[in-house]
């Protein structure tokens, strides 16, 4: 049990190793748990709800007829079990809850269908609906605190009482259309139709879609959403969050690896003599290595397992909402992920330990006994004398004479500082997302948005708006036109959401290549779709209107956007007119004259236009989409920053503390010749200050170059090619000063031992 005694002897080092590996293990296990926790409950929910494998939203014109045609064609497919056409109303107005709070989002007022809704998981209330009652999804209930019995007013005096709360795989995320289920749709006008397709056996939505297209000349006259795509998108939040945490844990593990190496190295140096004595007593290298291997192995295993066990604290706090929306009471299971992550960390830790412990074989007893005064045992070269002994001089000497140690500390500082800079800047940018929502979603930078709730009065309302004294210009828009690109097998959904403007001239509507359409034969496309179609600016692209009407356009620009996960395009209104596509503008971008504020305008005119549509601040537009992207990042970034700082600080404390312990004798000598503890403390602080400052000077430019590239990489799934960052100088300065302060405080905390009196130890061996 010699190894066990070492834990008592090396308490501080043991605590450091256990704590650091515990943090790594906690983060890594929880990241895996967050990414995978939803899988089993989603499978169970899908099985229970017997949901359609495919939902199709037919194109706008003659929806009921098209829906009927799609149903007919679908029913002919051997793999299709049943097809239902269900009427629904897309809620344009804000929903008012109990006559007070009003909310906005993507909501369908869906007519209850026995086949589609017969097996949805009811969390509260009953599936049996009376007139004037509705069922709402748990995600809406949880996010807006809507309870059974509450009233939802859905425009123009139509109100439903919540009779039950349900959940199903299609209604788990407010970023996508969510269904409020009613017995009878009170909205008789503007009814649309959805086609729900149920497959036989284990067939999935994509398989049904592929066969449908193959048998119907590649044409599908509507937008299709498959069950598997929806589940995947639902889990996007957890995947982003888990991915961020996994990245953090890997970075932290790398930093920890460096630090643990240093600790072991320091132990081997300080215990050189002990090892030499063991050797003279006849211990073989293998036996000595096994003592240390058991000691460090125990610490690594203990820290890792402890971290994995505690990972539940992190993962549960993040998965809680998902589980609530799924209607599952049990929390995430960490056993499998815990074992997996622990194995990785333990293997990595033991490898680090073993590679260093191999050096035990190089320790030769007689050399150690003869050369006690030599600090490193390494032959030193003659150097130029540095004659100063101020804290600055001593610190500089430490830096240049122990380069390996300095490099290690610099790397540790850089990694931690990079994490802090990353977190601080990301937080500022995320905070700024609503201000720059036009860039991320891909629309123009206007002041106020108008959405019509009565298309008959649209033109009059626009005319009226244009005459308002505050208004500079009004641009007519619509997003209600869907176009599709030519289908190829395995391509999935071919629909592009379309932003139709009556003009793009003189609008701040960013493109990353080329420009927005000026002529009626031009189209601008999202980068994701352009890349999928292998098209560049200047190429011609084929587009289908209403699924079958083909037209060719010049690709004049490429932009990036979160809108519809990057699958969108921009067209001019007159392009649609020339193609004889019937469409109606339903939105408008309002630009205010200089000197007029949005808030004032909304306050003065909000009520006035209430009967024709709704006016909202541009910054509130597509809030749900942005929340899906920024929410998980905001959740993860704060703990990330705290962890990075904590670990950076912990590293400095460990390294400086261990260095002080190693240099105890040297400190004793300095004190014996008249140096005060304060002088030695100042030396330590100066040393850490110089290293920290140097590290920050390296980190900041690296960070400025690497940060946008990292973000582009993380958003590549949505086709992002650029990530414009305007660094907030104050934030960069403050976060780096904060980091510096943490480093210095850590050095101060680690230097407490300098005030001990090691002079008396100079005579004792």
């Amino acid at each position, binding site marked *: 049990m010699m190894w066990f005694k070492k834990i008592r002897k090396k308490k501080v080092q043991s605590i450091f190793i256990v704590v650091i590996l515990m943090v790594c293990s906690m983060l890594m296990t929880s990241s895996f748990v967050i990414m995978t926790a939803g899988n089993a409950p989603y499978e169970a929910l899908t099985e229970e709800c017997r949901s359609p494998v495919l939902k199709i939203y037919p194109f706008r014109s003659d929806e009921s007829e098209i829906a009927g045609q799609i149903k007919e064609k679908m029913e002919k497919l051997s793999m299709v079990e049943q097809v239902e056409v269900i009427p629904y109303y897309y809620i344009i107005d804000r929903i008012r809850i109990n006559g007070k709070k009003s909310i906005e989002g993507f909501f369908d007022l869906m007519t209850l269908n026995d086949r589609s809704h017969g097996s949805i998981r009811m969390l509260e209330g009953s599936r049996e609906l009376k007139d004037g009652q509705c069922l709402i999804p748990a995600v809406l209930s949880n996010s807006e605190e809507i309870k059974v019995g509450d009233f939802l007013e859905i425009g123009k005096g139509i109100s439903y009482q919540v009779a039950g709360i349900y959940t199903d795989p299609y209604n788990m995320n407010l970023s996508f259309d969510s269904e409020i289920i009613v017995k009878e749709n009170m909205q008789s006008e503007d009814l649309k139709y959805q086609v729900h397709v149920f497959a036989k056996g284990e067939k999935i939505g994509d398989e049904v879609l592929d066969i449908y297209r193959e048998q119907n000349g590649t044409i599908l006259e509507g937008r299709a959403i498959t069950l598997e795509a929806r589940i995947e998108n639902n889990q996007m939040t957890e995947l982003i969050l888990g991915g961020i945490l996994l990245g953090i844990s890997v970075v932290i593990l790398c930093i920890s690896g460096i630090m643990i190496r240093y600790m072991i190295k320091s132990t081997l140096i300080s215990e050189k003599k002990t090892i030499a004595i063991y050797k003279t007593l006849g211990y073989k290298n293998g036996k000595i290595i096994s003592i240390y291997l058991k000691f460090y192995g125990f610490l690594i295993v203990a820290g890792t397992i402890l971290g994995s066990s505690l990972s539940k604290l992190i993962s549960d706090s993040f998965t809680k909402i998902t589980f609530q929306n799924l209607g599952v009471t049990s929390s995430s299971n960490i056993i499998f992920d815990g074992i997996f992550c622990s194995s990785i960390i333990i293997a990595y830790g033991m490898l680090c330990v073993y590679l260093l412990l191999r050096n035990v074989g190089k320790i030769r007893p007689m050399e150690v006994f003869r050369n006690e005064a030599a600090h490193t045992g390494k032959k030193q070269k003659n150097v130029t004398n540095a004659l100063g*002994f101020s804290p600055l001089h001593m610190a500089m000497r430490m830096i240049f004479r122990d380069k390996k140690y300095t490099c290690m500390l610099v790397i540790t500082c850089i990694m931690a500082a990079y994490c802090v800079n990353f977190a601080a800047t990301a937080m500022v940018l995320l905070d700024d997302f609503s201000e720059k929502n036009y860039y991320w979603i891909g629309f123009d930078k206007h002041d106020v948005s108008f959405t019509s709730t009565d298309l008959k009065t649209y033109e009059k309302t626009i005319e009226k708006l244009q005459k308002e004294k505050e208004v500079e210009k009004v641009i007519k828009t619509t997003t209600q036109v869907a176009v599709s690109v030519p289908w190829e097998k395995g391509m999935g959904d071919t629909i592009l959401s379309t932003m139709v403007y009556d003009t793009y001239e003189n609008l701040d509507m960013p493109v990353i290549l080329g420009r927005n359409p000026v002529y009626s034969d031009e189209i601008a496309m999202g980068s994701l779709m352009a890349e999928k179609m292998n098209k560049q600016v200047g190429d011609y692209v084929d587009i289908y209107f209403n699924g079958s009407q083909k037209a060719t356009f010049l690709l004049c620009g490429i932009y990036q956007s979160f809108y519809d996960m990057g699958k969108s395009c921009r067209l001019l209104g007159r392009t649609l007119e020339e193609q004889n596509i019937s469409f109606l503008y339903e939105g408008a971008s309002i630009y205010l004259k200089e000197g007029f504020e949005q808030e004032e305008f909304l306050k003065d005119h909000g009520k006035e236009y209430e009967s024709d549509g709704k006016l909202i601040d541009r910054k509130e537009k597509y809030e749900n989409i942005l929340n899906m992207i920024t929410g998980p990042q905001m959740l993860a970034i704060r703990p990330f920053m705290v962890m990075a700082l904590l670990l950076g600080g912990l590293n400095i404390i460990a390294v400086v503390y261990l260095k002080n312990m190693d240099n105890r004798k040297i400190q004793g000598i300095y004190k014996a010749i*008249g140096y005060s503890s304060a002088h030695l403390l100042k030396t330590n602080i100066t040393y850490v200050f110089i290293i920290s400052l140097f590290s920050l000077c390296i980190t900041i430019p690296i960070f400025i170059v690497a940060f946008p590239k990292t973000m582009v990489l993380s958003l590549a799934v949505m086709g992002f090619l650029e990530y414009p960052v305007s660094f907030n100088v104050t934030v960069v300065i403050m976060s780096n000063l904060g980091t510096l302060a943490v480093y210095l405080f850590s050095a101060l905390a680690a230097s407490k031992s300098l005030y001990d009196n090691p002079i008396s130890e100079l005579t004792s061996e």
Partner: protein
Amino acid sequence: MKTCVMKTEKVCKSFVSDGEVNNVIKNLDVKLYQGDFTVIMGSSGSGKSTLLYLLSGMDKVTSGKVYLKERDITGLKESAMADIRKDSIGFVFQNMNLIPDLTLLENVLSPSFQSKIRKEDKKKRAETLIEKMELYPHKNKFPNQLSGGQKQRTAICRALMNKPEILFADEPTGALNSNAGKGVLDTFTRLHEEGQSIVMVTHDLKAAVRGSRVIFLRDGRIDGELEQGPYRQKEEEARERMLYEFLKERNW
């Protein structure tokens, strides 16, 4: 009339180990004089090294007082004590205790860090000391590149750098071979001849004869003193005999 540079009044030093109190120095009164080469002798555990550390301010007394030129230095704060160690005291350890990261020249210069003397003068003084000790060719070497004797002579240079009132030495020849040890003792003799006050702990008869005064400790108390007068090489045998008799009387 000799001038007293340091004295103690009823100094006690106790160590507690496993709850047991071990009184190493017991109510000891001693005076050290300007220009004396005082040798402290005694058997193992008699408290000679402990006394040296108390006198040099390296350790704190349990009770009693220590005066340096009439100034009570017993209860001084750490920084004030550090100043005294820097300005008034030089210390040579048995195991040299050179700073391994510093070159020979840097080690010698290290105590002069707050001195008001110009940098060039400091360097000149350090180089003079090094030259005197015949170490000049090695001034850029690190401690692990020096022999034992060279290291100890470097330690003496370092102790003398700030022109201390008293030079303390704890078994300075203990870790050296006879040749190197003789060289170090010659250095001490020369320094004494130049007027340096020296207090040295040793159990080596050859080293002890170099002192002008020998104090013998037993169980933490002074058991006897011998005035030998300044060292003359030609009197070495006679001094050795006298010292031998002195020690024999004390069953050493």
